[in-house]
């Protein structure tokens, strides 16, 4: 490009650009070169005065200059946009500053334990059944072979509703009293009345006792019931299932034993003891962990399952108790006080 005018225009464009710092200014400056009255446009109008044979050269030079100026402006625009984009981002960040929201959602430790228990049993085919917390005497006691005058049915230990109490969505057997269930074993009955064997269910839920609250007692607490009904289920199957569960929960080193005991709805009945090498103060001692037994034939009869064809077992354990054992928690009231300093220790999902 030998034309000195064009060279000057290009040079002017080049020297004007560093001062251009925003888009309007850029538009304005661009117009002084490429606009209808811009210097390049003006120069192009001079083609009329150019000799015909020189016109191709003139045109070529003009286009070349225009190309240069346009790309100069384009580059500048990119640069301006980049600056503006960065400006919109604000100051550079200090990544060590804390997050803005202090929110950190989390699980309650009882939910965490419940989920752990259920996921273990799910591996061996148990799924969740539920029933209501408000129950009736028949489902909570009679159907579980607990006689009328059994101590567990005392007003001393069980919270009853007054005789006139009426419940729309809880089915009664006859006109027996409503109460707050004392164990999740009532779910066994509701499940067996609705579904027929083979059955493997696990039933977590809230239970109630007429207890004053202290470090080891709570007016409400949580249990998980399990029920397994099939052909030819034996005491050894019961042991096998519970051994699997306790090994998954407390580790491979756990030792277990069944110890004869008594529940009205199982025969024979056992307490399950376990011994774990690494459980703080309770290491290497037999600790009672749960109750279990073979479902009493009378119970099966009451829910129309033939005890000669079907046998099975049931078990129940306290979710608070398991949580306290697993984490070394010494006071059951922590679960219901919901203090952040307690909850935050266990609130992660894993």
């Amino acid at each position, binding site marked *: 490009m030998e034309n000195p005018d064009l060279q000057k225009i290009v040079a002017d464009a080049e020297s004007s650009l560093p001062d251009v710092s925003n888009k309007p200014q850029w538009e304005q400056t661009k117009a002084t070169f490429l606009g209808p009255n811009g210097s390049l446009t003006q120069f192009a109008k001079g083609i009329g005065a150019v000799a015909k044979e020189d016109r191709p050269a003139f045109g070529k030079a003009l286009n070349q200059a225009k190309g240069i100026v346009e790309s100069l402006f384009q580059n500048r625009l990119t640069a301006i946009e980049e600056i503006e984009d960065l400006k919109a981002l604000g100051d550079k960040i200090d990544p060590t500053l804390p997050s803005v929201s202090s929110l950190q959602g989390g699980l309650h430790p009882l939910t965490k334990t419940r989920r752990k228990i259920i996921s273990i049993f799910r591996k061996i085919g148990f799924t969740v059944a539920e029933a209501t917390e408000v129950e009736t005497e028949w489902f909570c006691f009679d159907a579980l072979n607990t006689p009328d005058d059994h101590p567990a049915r005392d007003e001393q230990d069980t919270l009853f509703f007054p005789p006139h109490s009426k419940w729309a969505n809880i089915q009664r057997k006859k006109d027996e009293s409503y109460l707050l269930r004392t164990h999740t074993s009532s779910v066994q009955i509701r499940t067996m009345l609705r579904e027929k064997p083979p059955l493997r269910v696990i039933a977590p839920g809230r239970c109630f006792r*007429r207890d004053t609250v202290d470090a080891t007692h709570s007016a409400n607490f949580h249990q998980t019931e399990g029920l397994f009904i099939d052909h030819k289920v034996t005491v050894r199957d019961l042991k096998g299932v519970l051994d699997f569960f306790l090994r998954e929960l407390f580790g491979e080193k756990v030792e277990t034993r069944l110890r004869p005991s008594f529940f009205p709805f199982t025969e024979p009945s056992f307490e399950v003891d376990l011994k774990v090498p690494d459980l703080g103060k309770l290491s290497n001692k037999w600790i009672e962990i749960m109750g279990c037994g073979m479902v009493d034939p009378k119970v099966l009869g009451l829910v129309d399952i033939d005890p000669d064809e079907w046998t099975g077992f049931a078990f129940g354990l306290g979710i608070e108790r398991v949580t306290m054992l697993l984490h070394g928690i010494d006071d059951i009231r922590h679960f219901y006080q919901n203090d952040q300093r307690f909850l935050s220790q266990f609130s992660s999902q894993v």
Partner: protein
Amino acid sequence: MKMSLDWLSQYVDLPDPAEELIDVLPMLGIEVEEGDEGPSVSLDKVVVGKVLEKNQHPEADRLSVCSVEVGAEAPAQIVCGATNFKPGDRVPVALPGAKLPGGFKIKKSKLRGVASEGMMCSAKELELGEDDAGLFILSGEPEIGQKITDVVSKSTTLELEITANRGDCLSHLGVAREVSAYYQTPTRFPAVNNSAEPTDTATGNSLLSSLDVQSSQCPYYTAWSVKGVKIAPSPNWLIERIESIGLRPINNVVDITNFVLHEIGQPLHAFDLKKIADSAIVVREAKEGEKITTLDDQERALSPNMMVIADAEKPLVVAGIMGSVDAEVDDSTTDIVLESAWFHPGSVRATARTLGLHTDSSQRFSRDVDPAGVEFAARRAIDLITEIAGGSASSEFISVGEPPRTSRTIEIETDYVEERCGFEVSTEDLTASWKRLGFEVEGTSPIRVTVPSYRSEVDRPIDLVEEFLRIRGTSDLQGSKFLSPSLIRDNEPAYDLCDRAVDNLIGQGYQEACNYSLRSSDELASWFPEINQEDLALGNPLTADHTHIRASLLPGLVEVLAHNQKNLNDLNHLFEIGRVFQPGPRGNAELISIAWVNTQANSRKNWKEEESSDFFSLKNSLERLLHAVGLNAPKGLWQSTEDQLPWQNGYAATLGDVHRNKLGIGLGTLSLNLTKKYDLKGAVLAVEILIDPVLLAKQKKPHPFSSFSTFPPAIKDLSLVVEKTEPAEAVREKVQEIIHQTIADGISLDPVIIFDVFSGKGLSVDKKSIAFSLRIRASDRTLGEKEVNNTFEKILEAIGSQTPYELRK
């Protein structure tokens, strides 16, 4: 139940060391409670002391200053508050440096200005017995200065927990039977010499003039007569037995009845003949309004469902539970009538429960005593009475009724046992096991097992399986390799729903909480004044703050907010999922509730401001949750709450009704007056979703696909002036409906969106303007400008003619 190993060894050979039983009994089904014998307790410095002098404390009426010989050179001066001792008595003395159970340390000290060099102790203070009424007076002149642990052995008494079905184990002989079955050694029953003959009426030979059993709750009653006894303190061996299980010796006759109760398990009652009016005994139901002052000095009102043993005038004993002060055997007693009977377990249990009076006797009757033991225990007691207290026993006893139960025979096959146990069992093993338990066994197929009367609960084949397993032992039982099914049932839908809700709310930054279901009446009244308190009241609440079941999770959550705020904890977003209870038109309903709350007030400042939440951010939070758990919001418009606790007027709303729609939602700011009571800073925003579980029982059908336009939409804005009170959603729905009717076939409308609401300048005070964004598109082409404008014109026209809304220019 307390059991002395030394006493037990009278009836069966014990292992060596006898403490082995602590591990053996639990595996037979009898739990042994662990004592708190920690290293902090050291009875080493507790020795036998002899009281030399006892003088009144100069400054305190209730204290005495004693000089006590403790085996050191000089006697110790000890200040004491007990009154049951005299100079010459030997008592346990805790010397300075001793640590008593419970961590109490003994030091030299001054009590009301008088120096005291130790402490004289009660049995309870040393955990050597239950008696805490006075000092533990040691019998038999033990050597002064000897360690108390050498004199009174504590390790020999075990605390046993007997399960409800094993009433037969509530005695030393009962436990001895179990021990003998386990070790296969014989049980030694005490020999009885008394050979009185039964008669069915009070004849000349009996001290009673009549015996009348009227109550049906007493199928079997016997009365025995002993003349000319001499009441005195019991001999040492008997005192030791009585004290070893934590009882207080009273006198020889009473101690003998207590001894036999704990030996055989049959409660007995000794009457002083001269205190029985007309020498007549009546076993009957109490009369309305009748009262009795029991031996614990409590006057008790009786009711007609309680059985009493009465004379011609008044009740003498609450049957099977406790006697009255009026019939007590005392120092002047010479002639005794001894009762041994079988009372119906349920009757005794109910009465003990109603009176709140649980005794060693009621405990045994309630658990069903052995009918065969009734006579045996009486003969044993009479042998002891005549031996220890003298007197002569009548050659006859009155016996009314029959033992209600004898032995019974069960037939069982070996296969039956095998099928339940899951391992091979031989008929010989079974026979041997049951024989060890004292059952008679005959035959092989079926095996005929005769169970003695004391095992009331063994009467079916399955019970025999349990007995076999117990004796065989269960600690070595190997678990089977069980099969997993290839098909598993679904979880309860309600469980899955709640589980998804937990995850969603945690994802939204909320912390899960867990609150009590039992609440106070005050709370219910202030949060839900429209609920009839009675509907949610418990019949037999235990404490005043736990009288009602919760109607909502919100009060609990607000309490937790307040607790954490007060403790400057950084926790102000909380949720809970659980069951709540609400009265409805057809009675109460148990509902699933999902509730979450937050408060803006934060205990800590943050370097950068957080966006504050309000009704609309919470509404979004609700929508996110509903979407995540797969619930559709109830149809209809959100209703602003008006005087509807617990919500704040004008800042909260409800959607749906749980009784009608099976799903109801409340959302917004909680009543400021209500939350202020919790000393909470700042307003509390809350959501509560109530679900009737029946809603979840329906299976949802798969949602059908509908095709959608792939062409870009034409966008038009529209601003309408409407009454200020008109809900925005009502206007939006109307607009949307009119557009749907107006647009041509083949043109579709995206949901109409509100993008601005304005009131104020340029509008009259009772108006507001709402701006909508419309997006319409054709299924087969990009709409042209002209077509769009035409459509829009038609829409405006339709709105103009069909609604009172004005177009805002």
